């Protein structure tokens, strides 16, 4: 099966007063047809920049997708799309849901109208048909009174409702690929839970592929088939959900998993967390970026960058401890 999306050697920098921030430093990532893939990692590791790159939303001249990067959508390089092709791709074949729906929605336009506009931008349907379809979409994302909601402005809706409007817009043209960048981070738990449920249902129904971006491993556990763990602009581990949760290889992934608050933890005791902070991306270290925070750090880790190495099927990790013969890691199993 050929992949729907294939990212190869993606490198993205931002030029700032302080210097060049290497936000994404060589990411390879693929998404199959009808597949849900998650990208997880701490704040600032480059998740959103990767997401924006997929839709070519990185703004020049400050943002710079480096030459040599490839983003293939059904084999076509998105980075060389012309204007017309890009219009068909964005919002049609590929759409995005952001963390903060209030800033992503147009505050001066009724929610139904925003869905209609997106529908009409990508197909020749009539205004009346678009209006009916918008109401139907609002019903689909869980509004009991979709016709009334269609007439409301974003500020008249709660955070959870706005996110559902965003999802209705994103699914309006039945995209093949949906990028969801922290779609539930701004929401509280009961609403988060329902938004995730909705994404799951829509994914099954429309057979779209989803790239779900989050810092919370709890959020991806029930929905992602494969997971990429990102650190300081690179992928440090990738594999099936089972590999990542049950056969965790990279020390960073282990630390990230340990720091998720769990209902089974005892109260009033210190929580595990990851010591230290991620490195500056203006002058990234030459060795493993996680070395300074890693309990298993060896000499070589500070000197040389470990390559992402595949061991067991599609489970890969970039860690000297796991890949060097003679260390206790000695392979991924």
């Amino acid at each position, binding site marked *: 099966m050929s992949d729907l999306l294939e990212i190869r050697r993606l490198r993205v920098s931002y030029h700032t007063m302080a210097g060049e921030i290497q936000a994404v430093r060589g990411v390879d990532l693929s998404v199959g047809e009808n597949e849900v893939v998650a990208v997880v990692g701490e704040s600032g590791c480059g998740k959103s920049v990767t997401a924006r790159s997929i839709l070519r939303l990185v703004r020049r001249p400050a943002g710079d997708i480096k030459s040599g990067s490839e983003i293939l959508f059904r084999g076509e390089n998105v980075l060389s799309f012309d204007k017309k092709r890009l219009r068909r791709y964005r919002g049609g074949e590929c759409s995005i849901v952001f963390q903060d729906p209030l800033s992503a929605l147009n505050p001066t336009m009724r929610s139904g109208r925003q869905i209609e506009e997106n529908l009409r931008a990508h197909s020749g349907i009539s205004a009346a048909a678009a209006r009916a379809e918008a109401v139907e979409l609002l019903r689909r994302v869980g509004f009991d009174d979709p016709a009334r909601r269609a007439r409301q402005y974003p500020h008249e809706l709660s*955070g959870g*409702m706005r996110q559902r409007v965003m999802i209705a817009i994103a699914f309006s043209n039945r995209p093949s690929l949906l990028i969801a960048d922290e779609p539930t981070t701004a929401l509280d738990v*009961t609403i988060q839970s329902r938004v995730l449920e909705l994404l799951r249902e829509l994914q099954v129904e429309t057979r779209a592929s989803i790239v779900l971006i989050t810092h919370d491993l709890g959020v991806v556990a*029930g929905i992602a088939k494969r997971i990429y763990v990102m650190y300081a602009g690179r992928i440090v581990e990738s594999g099936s959900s089972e590999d990542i949760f049950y056969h965790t290889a990279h020390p960073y992934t282990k630390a990230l998993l340990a720091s998720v608050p769990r*209902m089974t933890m005892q109260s009033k005791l*210190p*929580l595990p967390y990851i010591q230290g902070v991620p490195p500056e991306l203006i002058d990234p270290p030459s060795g493993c970026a996680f070395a300074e925070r890693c309990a298993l750090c060896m000499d070589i880790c500070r000197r040389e960058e470990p390559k992402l190495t595949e061991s067991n099927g599609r489970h890969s990790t970039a860690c000297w401890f796991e890949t060097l013969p003679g260390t206790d890691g000695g392979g991924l199993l």
Partner: protein
Amino acid sequence: MSGDAMFEARELSRHYSTGGGFLRALDGVSFKIFKGETLGVVGESGCGKTTCGRTLIGLYGKTGGSALYCDADVHTLAGEEKRRFKKEVQMVFQDAYSALDPRMTAGDIVSEGPDIHGLTRTRAERAERAVRYLELVGLGGEHLGRYAHEFSGGQRQRVGIARALAVEPQFILLDEPISALDVSIQAQIINLLMDLQKRLGLTYMFIAHDLSVVRLVSDRIAVMYLGSVVELASSAEIYYNALHPYTRALYASVPIPDPELEMRRRADVIGDAADPGLRPESGCKFAPRCKYADGVCRRDAPPLIESDEGHFIACHYPIQNIGAAPGEREMKF
């Protein structure tokens, strides 16, 4: 725990007038906060947690009932008493970014309170004190001259905590202090807060929407729903023996960082609290979303009563004790 109530809310209310009538944002709540404990407050967005905390410490006026600090009414404090109260009672906000003035250095921010309360006399003393409190929250003295916008989210939150601590308070209102941070930094801030509490004998009111976090830091937990406290008990009671269907629903909506358990977790689907249609005029406020509700629930609002020692609940049909919380624990069978 007994006797030593630091704060007490008695039928405390705060109503807002809105277009058509008025909104009972805080609808007659009663509870105590004992010296040295952490009272957690949980509930969905818009249920009145912030209103509750701020009205309790007199930051917001009340429209009914009373708020007492060491038996004195906080809304009528004056003179020396008021001055002392303002020093002893501090607050940390959710959004550290907008709470800190970007044009002030960390040193100025931390020194503002001590300046107001005349705690330092010389410049050297002032700087020494600022460094001491920055170090207490794990930031080195070298951060003294840095501006708020130069800090990461987690660091900013530490500056906010240092600011609150610098006037040597007895009590801190923590309003979603970690909701905007990613998991690893959340754990660091929680540990810091618990450690400071132990060392300095502080009393906290800890507000959040996520029960999994609140449970870890709190001695007792108040669950709020649309302006009312619907359940209040020790952390352990809330965990092992939650009686209110809403508390159970809050539990069931926490995602589990384990794919097998998460796939089987099914959150009770409950509607959106922010929906005005789901704010009934009479009876139990949770009834429109409650699967156990009947005519009695829709007619009579259940009062908050003590069902077991120290376990308060407002429900006509409390869930029978099955000895286990739903969610992660239940699925361990």
